[in-house]
């Protein structure tokens, strides 16, 4: 028989039957059910196992506080471990399975741990597993790890997509129960822009779970009408299935909207959206969570929070048991009894810990005051409870109420520290709550419906008028003013057996006593030592109980004890949603060079350089190994001419009357003497005297310069230049604008580069050595009129130019360069060949500029002008940076020329022990030089400039290499620079 625990009423749509599976068994539920309500409707009580003792556990609550009913939802790569059945919306075809057991849910082999529980008291693992020492790694830890966690990841990529978004509003209302709806209505009517977010799929909060009336309407009907009214307002946005999970500085909230979790498939739509909500004001109407009472055997399936029991009855039309008993210390617990009796459910007894209660009529139920539950029975489901007076009551559902804890979380995410209120025996928001936030309804400790509505309205009205909106007096609300009496009661003492505080992590009252006895006397220490409140439910039902018990142990009041700190997120949220779209190839944007498509058509191999993709080499038919391609590209360039896309270099256009002076201050060397039409190499230091970046700056006009930076540092150099111009020398006439992306820039290098370019630039432009020498620049045109910039600079050591055209012409330019270059057998070359040629030439690059290198280390000490005040020159003079034994950039050749060098090797003298004390430096870059026919390297070695010709060892322990190398000049190729000046 299906759904034998289903009764009438509620908000489920009985006309729509949904089929679902739990542990492979087919079951039915209805639209409007959660997985938990549907399981209960089918009489499923045992749904999971606890973390430590593998105790049988059932559904405990009807909301996000659920500690027990955690399942793995869906399967395969879509599997979602540790999902609370109490918030998972039922859909047709849902499949869920229980977690944390061997063999089966009913018969769990790991439950043997339960019998060992006397030896597994709080912190037991800190006190053992230490002998013998080697056993920890091999035996103990693997065993502990094997029992870690509840659910498992699939191990496969998350198949869903996620999105993010940004919402701006005047007033954010968190929670759409009575207080939230009232607040949204008031704020909405004022004209303020309002966002109303609620984690539930059904707007209304506890209005849907109770039998209250407002102005004569049922709470559910009132909520439905309120939603209708709000939906008609253009300035109000209602967001169901949206959890506001965190409150951050300056009115920023994080929220997560579940878009497709209630559907069989996402169908290519984002599964969830992470919203960043920017609010001017916020009203927190997050309600309250009921807390349990600790008593021996209080963890059996069938023992539930009292208000949750009536939620199932009122909202879902489901009864969690057929003989329900209520155990309470507050008036609210009685409401469960009344509601159930009204629905015709048999309530066997109501037990109240208080001795003097003015209780309502509960026909048919035995009433016991000043009574406690001291034991329970039933292996996989509750069968009976024992009273303190000694008799047993047969019952299959025990509804427990220990009172209500306001959901203060979001009020605490900044600096708020909740404050204890004796009258309601609960913590309410306190300390410094977030700027611009008010708390209304149960979240503030206002536990009656009329108070909730009143507070919601007044908070919204005050905020609306703060923001300049007009609110009108609202009609009086006639709502229930229910009884909220309570006498705090935490645990049943003096009875044998374990009483659970944190159900999921299996923390008992005794564990708390042990911890306190051992000195863990602050609530935070207790949490860490016992793990109370550290499970997936974040202690929503356990925390306050645990610290109240600690207070009892330490002889303090709960108020003195104080709570642990509440941290975001309010409920756990998928990491995928926090990442949004940024995964796989979309992790970061891709920057393409202007010749990219051309290079693709040539079969180039690409490499990531920061966000750029650059051609690394261009394989030709018959080349089996990358080295063959690179060697050819180098040789052909040096023999005739090669072309390389160097557009990725940072380009900053600098305008103004004072640019020369400005450059003098940001570069270590002199610039104000640079003539129009000339280029100069510039070395840039950080203020601490370390080399930061280098590049060339060309003077295109009297008041117009173009600076190039390294690819990696383009954005940083720009930022630093802006700092210099705005903060250090604000009255210099200097303007900056980045032009990196605007130009396709190609290096044309090799002995035939001039001849090639003669066919490219406008015929009237004189490329001769005399007219356009090394380090000259000019604006000209190419190919009959396209504007162009021409720079005579060389990174390869050859006669070379860099020629730039607007980026849109980039591909066409590359094609043309190659076609006019055919007669010279021009070869395109990639970043590898570029690197080989720069090592041959002895140019340092990123590998050498590791942020610790001084100009002195590079052999450029004299470039740092002492005649002017520039960034970095003062601190570059500190003594340790000028030691006589400083490392110097040097070249290295293998003594045995067939030896291959490796970057990252350290230099030691022959015969020395391999110790750090003998370390003399390191190899920073290596290349196979096809020009020289052997491997070469650049590196830094102590006093390298004085040790040319000496042999040392390049020791690369992590690659198992030890190569004798000769220290040489870093300039392997054309050291006099004849070729580049040619």
């Amino acid at each position, binding site marked *: 028989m299906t759904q034998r625990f289903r009764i009438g009423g509620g908000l489920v749509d009985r006309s729509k039957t949904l089929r679902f599976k739990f542990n492979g068994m087919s079951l039915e539920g209805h639209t409007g059910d959660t997985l938990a309500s549907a399981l209960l409707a089918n009489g499923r009580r045992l749904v999971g196992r606890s973390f430590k003792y593998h105790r049988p556990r059932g559904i405990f609550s009807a909301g996000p506080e659920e500690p027990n009913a955690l399942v793995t939802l869906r399967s395969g790569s879509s599997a979602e471990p540790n999902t609370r059945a109490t918030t998972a919306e039922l859909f047709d075809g849902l499949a869920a399975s229980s977690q944390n057991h061997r063999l089966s849910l009913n018969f769990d082999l790991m439950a043997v741990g339960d019998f060992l529980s006397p030896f597994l008291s709080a912190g037991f693992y800190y006190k053992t597993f230490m002998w013998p020492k080697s056993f920890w790694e091999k035996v103990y830890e693997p065993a502990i790890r094997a029992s870690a966690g509840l659910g498992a990841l699939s191990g496969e990529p998350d198949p869903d997509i996620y*999105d*993010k*978004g*940004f*919402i*701006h509003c005047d007033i954010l209302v968190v929670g759409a129960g009575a207080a939230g709806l009232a607040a949204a209505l008031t704020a909405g009517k004022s004209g303020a822009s309002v966002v109303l977010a609620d984690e539930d799929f059904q707007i209304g909060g506890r209005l849907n779970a109770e039998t209250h009336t407002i102005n004569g309407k049922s709470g559910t009907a009132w909520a439905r009408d309120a939603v209708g009214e709000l939906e008609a307002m253009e300035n109000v946005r209602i967001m169901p299935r949206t959890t506001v999970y965190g409150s951050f500085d300056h009115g920023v909230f994080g929220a997560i909207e579940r878009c497709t979790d209630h559907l069989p498939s996402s169908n290519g*739509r*984002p599964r969830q*959206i992470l919203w*960043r909500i*920017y609010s001017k004001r916020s009203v927190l109407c997050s309600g309250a969570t009921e807390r349990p009472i600790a008593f021996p055997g209080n963890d059996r399936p069938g023992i539930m929070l009292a208000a949750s029991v009536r939620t199932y009855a009122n909202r879902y039309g489901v009864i969690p048991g057929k003989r329900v008993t209520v155990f309470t210390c507050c008036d609210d617990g009685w409401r469960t009894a009344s509601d159930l009796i009204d629905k015709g459910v048999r309530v066997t007894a109501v037990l109240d810990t208080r001795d003097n209660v003015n209780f309502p009529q509960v026909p048919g139920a035995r009433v016991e005051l000043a009574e406690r539950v001291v034991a329970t029975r039933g292996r996989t489901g509750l069968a009976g409870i024992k009273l303190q007076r000694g008799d047993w009551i047969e019952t299959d559902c025990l509804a427990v109420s220990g009172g209500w804890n306001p959901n203060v979380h979001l009020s605490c995410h900044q600096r708020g520290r909740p404050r204890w209120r004796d009258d309601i025996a609960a913590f309410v928001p306190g300390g410094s709550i977030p700027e611009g936030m008010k708390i209304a309804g149960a979240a503030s400790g206002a536990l009656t419906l009329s108070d909730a509505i009143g507070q919601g309205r007044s908070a919204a009205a005050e905020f609306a008028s703060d923001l300049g909106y007009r609110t009108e007096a609202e009609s009086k609300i006639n709502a229930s003013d229910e009884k909220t009496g309570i006498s705090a009661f935490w645990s049943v003492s003096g009875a044998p057996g374990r009483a659970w505080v944190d159900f999921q992590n299996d923390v008992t009252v005794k564990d708390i006593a042990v911890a306190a006895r051992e000195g863990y006397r602050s609530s935070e220490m207790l949490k860490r030592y016992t793990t109370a409140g550290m499970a997936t439910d974040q202690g929503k039902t356990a925390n306050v109980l645990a610290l109240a018990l600690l207070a009892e142990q330490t002889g303090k009041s709960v108020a003195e004890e104080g709570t642990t700190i509440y941290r975001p997120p309010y409920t756990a949220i998928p990491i995928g949603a926090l990442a949004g*779209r*940024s995964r796989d190839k*979309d992790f*970061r*944007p*891709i*920057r*393409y*060079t202007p010749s990219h498509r051309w290079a693709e058509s040539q079969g180039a191999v690409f490499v990531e350089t920061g*966000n*750029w993709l650059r051609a690394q080499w261009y394989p030709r038919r018959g080349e089996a190994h990358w080295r063959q391609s690179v060697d050819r590209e180098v040789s052909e360039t040096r023999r005739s001419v090669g072309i390389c896309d160097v*557009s990725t270099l940072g380009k900053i*256009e600098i*305008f*103004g*009357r004072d640019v020369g002076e400005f450059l003098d201050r940001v570069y270590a060397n002199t610039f104000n003497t640079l003539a129009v039409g000339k280029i100069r190499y510039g070395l840039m230091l950080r203020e601490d005297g370390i080399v930061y970046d280098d590049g060339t700056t060309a003077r295109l006009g009297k*008041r*117009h310069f173009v600076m190039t930076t390294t690819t990696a540092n383009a954005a940083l150099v720009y930022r630093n230049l802006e700092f210099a111009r705005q903060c250090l020398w604000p*009255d210099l*006439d200097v*303007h900056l*604008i*980045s*032009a*990196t*992306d*605007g*130009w396709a820039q190609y290096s044309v290098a090799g002995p035939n580069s001039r001849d090639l370019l003669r*066919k*490219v630039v406008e*015929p009237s432009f004189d490329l001769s050595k005399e007219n356009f020498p090394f380090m000259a620049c000019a604006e000209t045109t*190419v*190919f*009959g*009129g*396209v*504007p162009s910039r021409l720079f005579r600079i060389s990174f390869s050591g050859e006669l070379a130019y860099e020629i730039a*055209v*607007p*980026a*849109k*012409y*980039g*591909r*066409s*330019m590359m094609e*043309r360069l190659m*076609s*006019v270059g055919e007669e010279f057998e021009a070869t395109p070359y990639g970043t590898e060949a570029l690197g080989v040629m720069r090592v041959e030439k002895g140019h340092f690059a990123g590998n050498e500029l590791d942020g610790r290198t001084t100009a002195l280390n590079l052999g450029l000490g004299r470039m740092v002008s002492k005649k002017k005040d520039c960034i970095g020159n003062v601190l570059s003079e500190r003594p340790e940076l000028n030691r006589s034994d400083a490392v110097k950039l040097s070249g290295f050749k293998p003594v045995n020329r067939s030896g291959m060098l490796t970057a990252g090797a350290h230099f030691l003298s022959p015969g020395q022990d391999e110790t750090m004390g003998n370390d003399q430096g390191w190899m920073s870059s290596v290349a196979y030089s096809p020009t020289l026919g052997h491997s070469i390297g650049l590196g830094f070695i102590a006093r390298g400039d004085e040790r040319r010709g000496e042999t040392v060892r390049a020791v690369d322990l992590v690659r198992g290499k030890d190569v004798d190398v000769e220290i040489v000049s870093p300039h392997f190729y054309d050291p006099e620079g004849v070729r580049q000046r040619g």
Partner: protein
Amino acid sequence: MADPVLTPEPFLGGYAKKFKNAVLSEATGLSIVFVAEPPDGREELELALFEKFGLNLPRPGSSNLSANRVARIVWLAIGQYLILFEDCKGPAAHRVSAELQDTAYVGDQSDNWVALRLSGAAAEAALERICPVDVAKCAFPVGGVARTAMEHLGAIAIRESNDGFLLLSSSSSARSFLHAVQTSLNNVH
């Protein structure tokens, strides 16, 4: 002398696509000119811009259209502006430079940017997924300019009409930017 003139190629190949409730296309005919004020030169520049191009200097966070609607001047930073010309014949920067003479520093920025036009009822909702700045009509009227980060990319959003935006971002990452906007449009309907 080589073969004829080089062929320019739009960064997104002249992309244009209709989405449900929105149209997204690459604005290929745009010339973009950087204009900066010399010290104490605001008044002269203001005068020159008005005389030569019919443009008024915009306030921070906004832009102005010229009387003949062919040029839009966008506030970029203190003393710095971008002028956007539709379907300009010849290099716009040269023309601006020639017209403004010494009243401004002028640089060509046309190829630094990819431009997308996004219009339609879904445009705002799509931008809401990537743009942290409030682009709702009430907060961001026609002519409004917001330079911000979208999906890790720097971008400038300009509201050209009630339901139309011009979006600029770096040209090297044009494809990633297009992908970001396309994804938004796909995700909102």
